[in-house]
């Protein structure tokens, strides 16, 4: 017993070393795989306040980019409005239920922390559960998709950005409606890959890729990116497509949190139909 005790005392540095490493790595991998507490990230009250203060001091630097993003969004909304007004009377006999048509609500939030250079990137916004933000909601910017809410505290939320290895965005090519998935490869914050588009489907350079209607997080039709590199994949079965991201992540200032009011209903129904 004495010997054991003496051994522990002699090796205490090594024992503490192992214990602290296990604790750290456990935190890290648990955080990446599960939704977790809000104390140890930037949704934390004190961290959030500090970042908010820092943003208020530095937000004037990228106003020019923010403005051009908003102008671009206005132009896009104008053209969509014109399109909707033209289409309303003609076409197929489909009318959306008013609850379905108005299921997406948006809330403006300011980005107070943002990384683009990590392997898994996160954003922090200054809206939390007090403003109705809940984990799982989608977030878009004036120019395209941004990410998904991961954790919320009362006044802040942390999002996993599209620049995160776990985030896949169900997308479609706007021109012909072909469905594929967009995922970030982990290096360049301006570029995202479009996966699983069969070699026999049509795609062209400069095609616009938008979110598909097959997801409950983002509304359909939000820009994801623009095709700028295109070649057949190594095995020849798919296209190897790189998109220029629609959202300018390094200069993100304001975002819209999208609340799909029928998300729970849709997911419950899908779970009932397909129990796991």
């Amino acid at each position, binding site marked *: 017993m004495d010997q054991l005790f003496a051994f522990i005392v002699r090796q205490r540095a090594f024992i503490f070393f192992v214990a602290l490493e296990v604790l750290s790595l456990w935190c890290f991998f648990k955080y990446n795989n599960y939704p977790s507490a809000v104390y140890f*990230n930037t949704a934390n009250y004190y961290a959030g306040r500090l970042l908010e203060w820092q943003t208020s001091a530095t937000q004037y630097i990228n106003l020019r980019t923010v403005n051009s993003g908003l102008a671009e969004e206005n132009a896009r909304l104008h053209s969509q409005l014109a399109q909707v007004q033209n289409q309303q009377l003609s076409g197929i006999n489909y009318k959306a239920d008013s609850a379905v048509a108005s299921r997406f609500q948006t809330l403006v939030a300011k980005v107070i922390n943002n990384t683009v250079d990590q*392997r898994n990137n996160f954003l922090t916004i200054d809206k939390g559960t007090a403003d109705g933000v809940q984990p799982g909601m989608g977030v878009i910017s004036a120019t395209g998709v941004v990410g998904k809410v991961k954790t919320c505290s009362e006044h802040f939320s942390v999002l996993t950005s599209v620049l995160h290895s776990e985030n896949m965005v169900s997308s479609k090519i706007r021109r012909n409606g072909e469905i594929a998935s967009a995922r970030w490869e982990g*290096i360049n914050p301006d570029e995202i890959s479009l996966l699983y588009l069969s070699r026999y489907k049509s795609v062209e350079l400069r095609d616009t890729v938008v979110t598909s209607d097959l997801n409950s997080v983002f509304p359909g039709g939000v820009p994801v990116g623009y095709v700028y590199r295109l070649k057949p994949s190594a095995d020849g079965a798919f296209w190897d497509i790189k998109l220029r991201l629609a959202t300018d992540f390094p200069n993100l200032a304001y975002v819209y949190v999208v609340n799909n009011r029928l998300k729970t209903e849709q997911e419950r129904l899908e779970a009932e139909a397909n129990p796991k």
Partner: protein
Amino acid sequence: MNTRNLLTIVFWSLLYVVLQVLLFRNLVLFHYGFCFVYVATILLLPFDISAVALLFTGFGVGFLVDIFYNTPGMHAAATVFTAYLRPFALRLLTPQRGYEDRNEPLIGEMGLSWLLTYIGLMVFLHHAVVFFIEASNWALWLPTLGKVLVSTLFTTTVITLLHYFRKS
């Protein structure tokens, strides 16, 4: 160690962490060069600090930085690792006269070439752990190694430059 020395150390440790969170977190060169200046907190502690105190300081500082990077545990793991290896590195780099008449790894006491070797080595170990945990994937080993090397140069330069202010 007297109270004045202790206060100096606490002041500089806080300064490194604040600089990390408010300044260097937003300063990334060409998506490859990161500066984790907070490592200086454990590198520049006095020689006579106990190994266990070193480990806990490393864990605390690393975890604080992690909160702001949304990577709970990653920087803590790397910093604890660096803190554990510090006594071995110091033994490896023992100067000819030993450490007897010296208190802290600062330039006035150790000289520039010793300091650059020591900081460079420790920073390299720390960054290797940070970036390989972050990648969690050997497929990205080449860009990850690139990040480690570029960032090691960047951090070593910044720590050495800042350390000139600390000397006085």
